């Protein structure tokens, strides 16, 4: 053994601690190892006893960016009258002093230690160098909204091994273009079936694209067509392929995620989707490709549902939904992707139950539409949520018909309720179900309900509006629901007073900004609160976006779809659309993670998270989501000034 002496072998131990800390702290965690090493070597460390004033307003700029290693600080400003206004609390992993440092400005606020506090100091020179060379680092500091680095939050969540499985190739992160799609094999539409089959087997493909004389794709022939339309039917294999081709050519863009392809397969009940790149046909992606990608699939579950003929048959299938959520989480799905898949599956289950019930009970006396609302209406279900459904039937022409309809639908709705319960949809404790006679009514009664809620917004009416106005049709005569939606639209035009009530609702749940003191202030004891993600996070976002949607009379019901549509119509949404989406996705994903973990360990899912278990980045994201809600609530107050009490 010998001999070349490393200059400072043992210094690694101090720096190792520093680096492992920085790896959890944005924006330092976005740096590569080499840069992290350099940063760590250039850090110094200071200690401030509780109540130390670290930076003072209007004094010369600080010489370093400070990163809180332990403890916490209060950011405050002194007003002209000498009052202290607290602006923010910062805790472990947060930084301060950036603006004055970079702006060469006077210090803008007072920074006071609210606890014994340890800080790492990053000197100005090093900071400027990083800002100059590290894009993600710069972005972080220059961003004023949460949009820029939120995607990294997802990345971070995916890195947590407790949620994610590691080496699977991911349905939601793999683009269609990245799948092994070879050049498309095609043939002309007058090719003989046998010849086409030979081409397919030679190329080991399960589908072949059929081109017309102008060399445009007109159809596709798959293994299934050969099986079902040729072999089973004893068809002559010398017939042209155009006789057996499927002409529904469903396409995805090469830039789409594989998930989109799955959704299309589910939707159109097909196995092959054409991939389009830059306007030209680039390949075919099959459900087999996707199965290989993901192991088990939501697609196979929907197939399973579709093949069932009885409610009893649906029960075991419905139990698999939680596994699907686990799978999607593991694959790094965004919250909106998870709820999309769950909605698709749940919708199918509900339709099946309604369909079976109708079959059992015989033809209804008048057409009807089964509608869902609440989270189901907004397509935001995660794990099985309470039934929120109702029934609209066509206005009966005679008293006799009215009586017959009443009898029929009362029994019908009760049956559906029980069927859904068997499939794992719990009853609604508030009895918002079609089995409640109040919510099983002809169209004209529904119109009357809506009119009275909007014109006389009692507390109960507002509560009903908030639930029911997120309705969407599920099964039956869809035009009944559409008529009701149109009616609502014209009802709401210029109903400033009613919207004022909704505005009050939207600002009722103020986010707990002060709550974040507990990250900062006390080590133990007094602030052991947990955070209700639904009430404090999701509900205000949903209420705000619903208010805007009803203001503009759009018919979308899901929060994200509403945002998308309002983007070009609504001034507030136009400005904050991205922030809204990210905040919604983020809180939703936190909630899904949380509930999935609870379910996996045999607990009943709830909405309470312990903020102390969040990573710094998560804490920061959630804090910024709350700040966004707060800001928009202020805008709403401004907008509805005279109607806010």
């Amino acid at each position, binding site marked *: 053994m010998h001999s070349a002496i490393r200059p400072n072998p043992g*210094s690694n131990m101090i720096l190792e601690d520093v680096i492992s800390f920085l790896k959890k702290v944005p924006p330092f965690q976005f740096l590569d190892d080499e840069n992290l090493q350099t940063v760590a070597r250039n850090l110094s460390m200071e200690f401030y006893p509780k109540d130390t004033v670290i930076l003072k307003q209007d004094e010369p700029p600080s010489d370093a960016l400070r990163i809180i290693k332990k403890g916490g600080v209060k950011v405050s400003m002194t007003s002209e009258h000498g009052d202290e206004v607290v602006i923010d609390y910062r805790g472990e992993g947060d930084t301060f002093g950036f603006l004055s440092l970079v702006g060469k400005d006077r210090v803008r606020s007072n920074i006071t230690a609210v606890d014994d506090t340890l800080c790492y100091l990053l000197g100005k020179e090093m900071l400027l160098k990083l800002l100059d060379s590290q894009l993600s680092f710069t972005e972080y500091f220059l961003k004023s909204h949460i949009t820029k680095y939120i995607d990294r939050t997802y990345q971070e969540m995916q890195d947590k091994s407790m949620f994610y499985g590691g080496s699977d190739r991911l349905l939601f992160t793999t683009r269609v273009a990245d799948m092994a799609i070879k050049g498309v094999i095609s043939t002309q539409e007058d090719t003989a079936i046998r010849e086409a089959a030979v081409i397919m087997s030679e190329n080991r493909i399960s589908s072949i694209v059929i081109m017309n004389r102008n060399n445009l794709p007109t159809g596709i022939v798959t293994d299934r067509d050969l099986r079902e339309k040729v072999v089973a039917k004893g068809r002559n294999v010398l017939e042209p392929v155009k006789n057996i081709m499927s002409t529904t050519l469903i396409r995805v863009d090469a830039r789409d995620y594989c998930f989109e392809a799955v959704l299309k397969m589910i939707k159109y009940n097909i196995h092959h989707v054409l991939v389009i790149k830059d306007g030209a046909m680039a390949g075919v992606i099959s459900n087999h490709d996707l199965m290989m990608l993901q192991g088990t699939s939501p697609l196979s579950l929907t197939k399973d549902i579709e093949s069932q003929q009885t409610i009893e048959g649906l029960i075991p299938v419905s139990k698999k939904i939680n596994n699907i959520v686990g799978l999607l989480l593991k694959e790094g799905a965004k919250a909106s992707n998870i709820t999309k898949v769950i909605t698709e599956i749940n919708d199918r289950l509900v339709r099946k139950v309604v369909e079976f019930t109708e079959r059992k009970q015989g033809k209804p006396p008048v057409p009807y539409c089964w509608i869902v609302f609440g989270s189901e209406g907004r397509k935001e279900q995660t794990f099985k949520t309470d039934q929120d459904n109702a029934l609209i039937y066509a206005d009966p022409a005679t008293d006799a018909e009215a009586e017959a309809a009443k009898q029929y639908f009362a029994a019908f709705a009760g049956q559906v309720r029980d069927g859904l319960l068997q499939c794992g949809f719990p009853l609604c404790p508030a009895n918002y179900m079609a089995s409640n006679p109040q919510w099983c009514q002809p169209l004209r009664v529904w119109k009357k309900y809506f009119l009275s809620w909007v014109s006389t917004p009692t507390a109960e009416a507002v509560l009903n509006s908030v639930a029911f106005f997120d309705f969407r049709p599920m099964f039956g005569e869809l035009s009944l629901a559409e008529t009701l939606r149109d009616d609502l639209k014209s009802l709401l035009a210029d109903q400033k007073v009613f919207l004022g009530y909704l505005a009050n609702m939207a600002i009722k749940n103020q986010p707990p900004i002060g709550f974040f003191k507990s990250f900062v202030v006390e080590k133990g004891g007094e602030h052991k609160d947990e955070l209700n993600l639904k009430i404090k996070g999701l509900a205000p976002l949903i209420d705000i976006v619903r208010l805007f949607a009803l203001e503009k009379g759009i018919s979308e019901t899901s929060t994200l779809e509403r945002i998308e549509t309002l983007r070009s119509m609504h001034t507030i949404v136009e400005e904050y659309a991205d922030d809204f989406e990210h905040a919604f996705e983020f809180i939703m994903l936190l909630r899904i993670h949380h509930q999935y973990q609870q379910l996996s360990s045999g607990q009943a899912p709830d909405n309470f998270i312990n903020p102390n278990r969040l990573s710094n980045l998560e804490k920061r994201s959630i804090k910024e989501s709350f700040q966004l809600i707060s800001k928009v609530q202020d805008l709403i107050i401004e907008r509805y000034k005279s109607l806010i009490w």
Partner: protein
Amino acid sequence: MLSLFERKKKKQKIDRSVPISEARYVVLDTELTGLDEKKDSIVSIGAVRMTGGRIELGDTFYRLVSPRTELKASSVIIHEITPSEVAAKPGIGTVLAEFTEFCGDAILAGHFISIDLSFLNREMKRISGKNIPNPAIDTFAIYEWLRKRNKSRDCFATSLAGYRLYDIVKCFDVPINGAHNALMDAFITAQLLQRFLPLLTEAGVEDIGDLINLGIPFKGGDHFNLSGEFSNF
């Protein structure tokens, strides 16, 4: 109680009016083969630089030394430094030259620093005929001084068993990880001094002249050390 030697040194280089919040310190720790000055020798030296209360994390000193005396099994167990690890390392002469350069004219600080200094100075004398010229302060002496004036504070109220570094730093909430070597101990000691500085300011200690007077290295630290866990050995 200033010795003739220290008075001479003061004239040479130290401006005693520098505020304690601006002075430059080098906080050090050594690891030894044992505590017998005649038989034992230095295994490693660790040190961190501090300006006022600001510890420089990247500018540290840590060297293993090829010991002149044999590593004993007991010290191998404590330091986890094995004979083969140190055999190929530079001798104390080389390391000391680098170390004094690292120290510059900073004030040296350490917990029971007289032990470290006696070993360092014995080697210095042997090699160059001089002691290390820097003034030195003892975090244990500072602790005792503060204790007399801060009876109400938890960490000063009752005497901590054995005055061992680790008992004291734990009370002052200095983060400690499992590692135990000269550099980490120097780092921990520096953080202790970092916490003492505001308390000293509060107690009216302004410049390093005062600090040097009240922080005179405590002799006989080995008695404390022998009673419990080891700091140097």
